[in-house]
């Protein structure tokens, strides 16, 4: 039995230094409901410390939250990584932290990094600099995430910075990616024209929201359940599943 699910797989919370203070769990869920989203990905920069709070806030809403991290590779490529459970995301977070330089965040330059509970109440700050590169290569990130049962998608590939195409020119031929993410302001057909090197890839489009108004509902999945495995099947167009941007 298939369902049609609107998804925004790339959303930041107040843990991301560049996100607005309104990006707290209950408001994210409320906005997701307004937009008709059935599936959201919570992906802060190099950390998953708020994913459990958003999962808790979503209980009873009918919205599925995939916990994740937007990892910055050593090539300064941003990669959206998503999992089914908070436990998986927290294991991945330990790996990411091990590969992140131990620098202190400068709130004046980057902004504060708040860890909050399901109601959005302040718990603590993460004092570590999250908005920087890990020393993991793109290949390492994709392989490790897939080993942990997760999904890795190069973020906003059509952006002039922090993107796979800007930084590395093209998708390394040996890299097994089910899809790539394009900007929420981009038309898929234009991106395919502008970047012939990714013409063969499935595309999804997410908001990369740092404020509530930036969340989007423009990617629709036909899947049997809102899980990572089903998303991958849809991205590969297998077993009757599909994904489209509209």
């Amino acid at each position: 039995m298939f369902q049609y699910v609107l998804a925004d797989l790339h959303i930041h919370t107040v843990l991301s230094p560049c996100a607005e203070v309104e990006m707290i769990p209950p408001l994210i869920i409320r906005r997701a409901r307004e937009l008709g989203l059935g599936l959201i990905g919570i992906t802060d920069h190099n950390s998953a410390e708020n994913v459990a709070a958003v999962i808790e806030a979503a209980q009873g809403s009918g919205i599925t939250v995939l916990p994740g991290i937007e990892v910055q590779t050593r090539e300064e490529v941003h990669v959206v990584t998503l999992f089914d459970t908070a436990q998986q995301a927290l294991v991945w977070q330990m790996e990411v932290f091990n590969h992140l330089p131990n620098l202190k965040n400068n709130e004046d330059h980057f902004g504060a990094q708040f860890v909050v509970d399901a109601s959005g109440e302040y718990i603590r700050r993460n004092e570590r600099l999250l908005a920087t590169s890990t020393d993991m290569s793109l290949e390492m990130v994709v392989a490790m995430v897939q080993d942990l049962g997760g999904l890795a998608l190069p973020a906003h590939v059509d952006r002039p910075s922090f993107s796979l195409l800007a930084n590395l020119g093209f998708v390394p031929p040996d890299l097994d990616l089910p899809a790539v993410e394009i900007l929420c302001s981009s038309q898929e057909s234009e991106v395919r024209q502008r970047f012939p090197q990714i013409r063969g890839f499935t595309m999804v489009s997410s908001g990369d929201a740092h404020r509530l108004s930036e969340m989007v509902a423009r990617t629709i999945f036909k899947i049997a359940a809102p899980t990572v495995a089903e998303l991958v099947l849809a991205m590969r167009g297998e077993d009757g599943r599909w994904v489209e941007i509209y």
Partner: protein
Amino acid sequence: MKLREVVSSLNLGVASASDTLDQTITGGYASDLLSCVMAKAQAGNIWVTLQAHVNIVAVASLLNLTGIIITEGSRLEEATIEKANEEHIPILTTPLPTFTVVSKLAALGIQGTD
């Protein structure tokens, strides 16, 4: 100027394709964004970058660059070295930062494009 002279003058490490150092350098280009390199670097250029990802080899090969200088002691991946040997692209290494390397290349008479 021959690549070999640059290697010896800047005391560069040779990580791959050491049999290709007799090429003549026609000019230089520096950027860490491969999309910019693909658009701007000219055949015969030496390319200065701290990007050590395997894709640099394909870019250098595509554009017929004479070689790649990897700066700041950026860690090379095994796949990059392997690919560079296959494609006969010399990868040269240095602990110096990009600005310093470019200054030294300019002092040797290697010019960028306008």
